[in-house]
């Protein structure tokens, strides 16, 4: 079985490679033939009158679609590669995806070169304008804000000071190396070396993302390295342009240096400001998009992309602009757009960034084969050595400094991972490619490619076993929990209060002030409708509810209705350790119930049958979701009213309650059914009285969601009220099963 999969994958990839190669050669032949054709035609016309051609039933015109066709082929190749690596699990455990992709790129490049064609090089324009933004937007939009803001000082320190140190150290040392006679590099002057340093020293977000995503280290380290890779863009941009200008003029002036420092602030702060402006405009626009929900995701993408491009116009830091835009826009946009748009945004971003990332690595491989290389042993080897050395020294030095200010100190293990995670990538290559064409360029490019290969292959492959070896803390698999949210907020307020009592304005005080400002002024402008006054806890709760309801519906998947019934039988079968005797529903009863429920729900569905291309269907899935949520809420309320005290945070629970808890445990997981048990204490009279309450409940609980779902809510509620009654009786036999079921089962 596995062999078949492997062979299929290999065959398909070979097919694609061949296709790509062929498309290159075919079009060349076609061009020649067309030229011949034209010449012949013109000759004919010159000589004779119109030569009658028969109408071509089937013709071949490749030139017409050449560019999009080849682009699609390349993207398809990238996708098949990605698919292939996940189908063959053994390899992907050892080798990170990026390595494999570069390898494939090398192969493809080799094949293309072998056929005599010129393989395409990673065009810097293509890279910076089309391939990089999706990755950065994806990273910025989903940036975890809490760890980012908590560690912002350290991140900025690493990004700015660390990169500066790297640049000057590497540049200086390489200049020293170039002075060695044996290297024959005397023509490389100091400025060029500094320029080289500025290209090679920046940690690359694409590579970091690609490698770190697979090793799942703890949040702190991940955000430190990743945040650094994002924020060092400003430094890179400034230094790169600065040294390029200087190299052009062959001199460093003092005014130049001062201007450089000023330019740094302009570039970074300007970039952030551009991003913030676009973010606010985007958030404001999303306030009105309820009139046409289908185009909502496009606003998010376009505003962010425009932010990036606008920043690039002025040579400001496009990456920082993009990140700022995503971060600012996100909370407000998410409050405004529909759930479907949110999912669309999420998946499109993931999709584009995934494709981009794959294409970048493949192209890196191809460009390696393609480009002209000037291999100089000494230069290359020393570059690699100095990159490593400067990174280690920089990290150690900066950590020693930052640990004085940090509450959670960085240990030696952390420092090692941060240093080891400083991967270089495609940005360095593209920047190098933009250099003016001279002999030094090829030398630099070769060195850059070698460093990239070294970091991605050697460091990328060994980081996972090292993480295991050093027992670095992994990412906590934390399910989103309402408790955590409550406690986080509680803690925030508590710490703010204590700071106020202490009398000094610390970190928490300012954060609290910002939140209050946000709530009173900003949210009112940027969020539509009543959601603007919704406190964070409630929106979090609603989000969680929706998610859980969806999970419940999806786990019921194919036959949604019988789930209710089947859960009853499943539960009864599984009742171990339960003090009550279990009871099964007879088959005929099950069938009856199923029929009744299906009929009811079908009526609801038929009413929803309206179709318009530009409207989104309020389809069956959403019905089920809202139904599931109501159901869950009713369950919870019933359960809560039955037991009012819970001994929390305590070791000794009375033995009776212990048994109880075990049942609850089985009940509350979302993969199995959602059927609560009866309790020891309450009587079924409670159940019956609760049933009467149901009509009122749905109205109240649905108000937070009112402006989100479609028009048919009121009707649904009545039906669902009935169904809920039925479903609830079914799933809870109560302590006296016989009487309960017969009396309360009503269609």
């Amino acid at each position, binding site marked *: 079985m596995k062999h078949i999969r492997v062979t299929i994958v290999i065959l398909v990839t070979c097919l694609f490679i061949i296709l790509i190669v062929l498309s290159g050669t075919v079009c060349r032949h076609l061009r020649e033939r067309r030229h011949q054709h034209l010449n012949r035609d013109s000759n004919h016309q010159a000589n004779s009158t119109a030569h009658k051609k028969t109408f071509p039933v089937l013709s071949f015109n490749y030139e017409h679609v050449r560019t999009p066709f080849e682009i699609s082929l390349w993207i398809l190749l990238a996708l098949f590669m990605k698919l292939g690596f996940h189908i063959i699990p053994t390899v992907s455990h050892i080798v990170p995806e990026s390595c494999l992709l570069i390898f494939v790129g090398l192969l493809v490049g080799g094949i293309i070169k072998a056929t005599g064609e010129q393989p395409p090089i990673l065009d810097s324009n293509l890279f910076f304008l089309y391939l990089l933004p999706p990755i950065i937007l994806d990273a910025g939009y989903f940036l975890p804000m809490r760890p980012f803001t908590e560690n912002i000082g350290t991140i900025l320190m690493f990004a700015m000071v660390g990169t500066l140190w790297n640049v000057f150290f590497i540049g200086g040392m390489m200049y020293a190396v170039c002075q060695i006679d044996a290297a024959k590099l005397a023509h490389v002057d100091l400025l060029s070396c500094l320029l080289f340093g500025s290209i090679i020293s920046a940690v690359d977000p694409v590579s970091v993302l690609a490698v770190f995503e697979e090793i799942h280290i703890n949040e702190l380290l991940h955000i430190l390295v990743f945040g650094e890779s994002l924020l060092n863009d400003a430094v890179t941009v400034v230094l790169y342009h600065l040294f390029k200008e200087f190299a052009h003029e062959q001199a460093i002036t003092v005014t130049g240096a001062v201007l450089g420092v000023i330019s740094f602030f302009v570039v970074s702060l300007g970039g952030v400001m551009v991003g913030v402006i676009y973010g606010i405009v985007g958030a404001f626009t999303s306030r009105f998009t309820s009139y046409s929900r289908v185009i909502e995701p496009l606003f998010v993408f376009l505003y962010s992309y425009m932010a990036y491009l606008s920043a690039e116009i002025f040579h400001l830091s496009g990456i920082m602009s993009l990140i700022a835009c995503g971060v600012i826009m996100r909370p407000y946009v998410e409050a405004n757009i529909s759930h479907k748009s949110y999912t669309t945004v999420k998946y499109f971003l993931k999709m584009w960034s995934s494709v981009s990332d794959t294409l970048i690595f493949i192209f890196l491989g191809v460009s390696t084969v393609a480009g002209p290389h000037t291999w100089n042993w000494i230069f290359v080897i020393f570059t690699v050595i100095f990159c490593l050395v400067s990174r280690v020294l920089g990290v150690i030095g900066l950590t020693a400094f930052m640990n004085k200010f940090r*509450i959670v*100190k960085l240990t030696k293990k952390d420092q090692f991972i941060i240093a080891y995670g400083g991967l270089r990538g495609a940005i360095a290559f593209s920047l190098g490619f933009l250099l003016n064409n001279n002999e030094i360029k090829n030398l630099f490019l070769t060195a850059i490619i070698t460093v990239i290969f070294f970091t991605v292959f050697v460091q990328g492959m060994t980081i996972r076993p090292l993480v295991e070896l050093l027992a670095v803390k992994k990412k*906590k698999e*934390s399910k989103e*929990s*309402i*408790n*955590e949210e*409550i*406690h986080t*907020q*509680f*803690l925030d*307020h*508590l*710490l*703010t*209060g*204590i700071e*106020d*009592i*202490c*009398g*000094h*304005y*610390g*970190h*928490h*005080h300012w954060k609290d002030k910002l939140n209050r400002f946000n*709530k009173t002024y900003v949210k009112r402008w940027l969020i539509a409708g009543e959601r603007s*006054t*919704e*406190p964070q*806890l*409630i929106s979090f*709760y609603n989000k969680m*509810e929706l998610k859980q309801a969806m999970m419940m519906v999806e786990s019921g998947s194919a036959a949604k209705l019988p789930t209710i019934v089947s859960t009853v039988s499943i539960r009864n079968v599984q009742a171990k350790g339960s003090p009550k005797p279990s009871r099964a529903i007879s088959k005929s009863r099950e069938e009856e119930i199923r029929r009744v429920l299906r009929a009811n729900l079908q009526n609801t569905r038929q009413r929803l049958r309206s179709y318009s291309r530009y409207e989104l269907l309020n389809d069956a899935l959403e019905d089920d979701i809202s139904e599931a949520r109501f159901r869950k*809420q009713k369950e*919870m*309320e019933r*359960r*809560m009213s039955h*037991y*009012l*005290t*819970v*001994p*929390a*945070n*305590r070791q000794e629970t009375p033995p009776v309650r212990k048994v109880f*808890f*075990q049942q*609850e*445990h089985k*009940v*509350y*997981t979302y993969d199995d059914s959602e059927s609560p048990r009866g309790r020891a204490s309450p009587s079924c009279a409670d159940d019956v009285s609760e049933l009467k309450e149901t009509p009122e409940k749905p109205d*109240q*609980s649905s108000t*937070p969601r009112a402006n989100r779902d479609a028009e048919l809510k009121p009707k649904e509620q009545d039906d669902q009220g009935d169904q809920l009654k039925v479903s609830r009786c079914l799933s809870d036999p109560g302590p006296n099963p016989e009487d309960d079921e017969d009396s309360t089962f009503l269609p």
Partner: protein
Amino acid sequence: MGALQSSPGRPEYSDLAEKTGFSFEQIGVLHKRFKQLSHNEETLRRDHFNEIDDLAFNPIRAQIIEAFFDRRNFHQNGEGKVQEIGFEEFVVVMSHFRPPSAHMTEEQRGKTRREKLRFLFNMHDTDNDGIITLEEYRHVVEELLSRSGTLEKETAKCIADAAMLEVASISVGHMLLERFEIESRMIIRFLNMDTTTLCK
């Protein structure tokens, strides 16, 4: 101003420093703040706390203030509430928020974590019976939402219920907070320098 004023009565400071782990300078700063809050009296009362303007926006203000007057937080195994506290109790309560010192053994770390958790628990457990009931938890959620203006009692109830059920389902109550790494989050930076004159 300066050096002379910052250390009156050093012997009592050394006692406190040993008990709570603050440095002399930090205790000096706290003493100044204490005197500022209490208008140079010997003890602090609840209305002194109510005078702090910044606290007015805090939704759980009442509970924070109560925590200062709760005997259970004084590390003397007492119970119940007091009406006024002296400087020593003030510093002891503050010491719950001290950052962990650089060299701590696992045991010490566990101890501080338990102390902080105990403090939080006492804040929730308002009727001093050692158990957090559903009503108390609901009260917490309502307080948190109280500043938002639109207090929907229904939603607050739902949230509290969901939270309680979560705890119940995990069935090892305080493990939930363990994941939190309380000892690194429940921390205030205590300054060695006196900045109280700059704010308030």
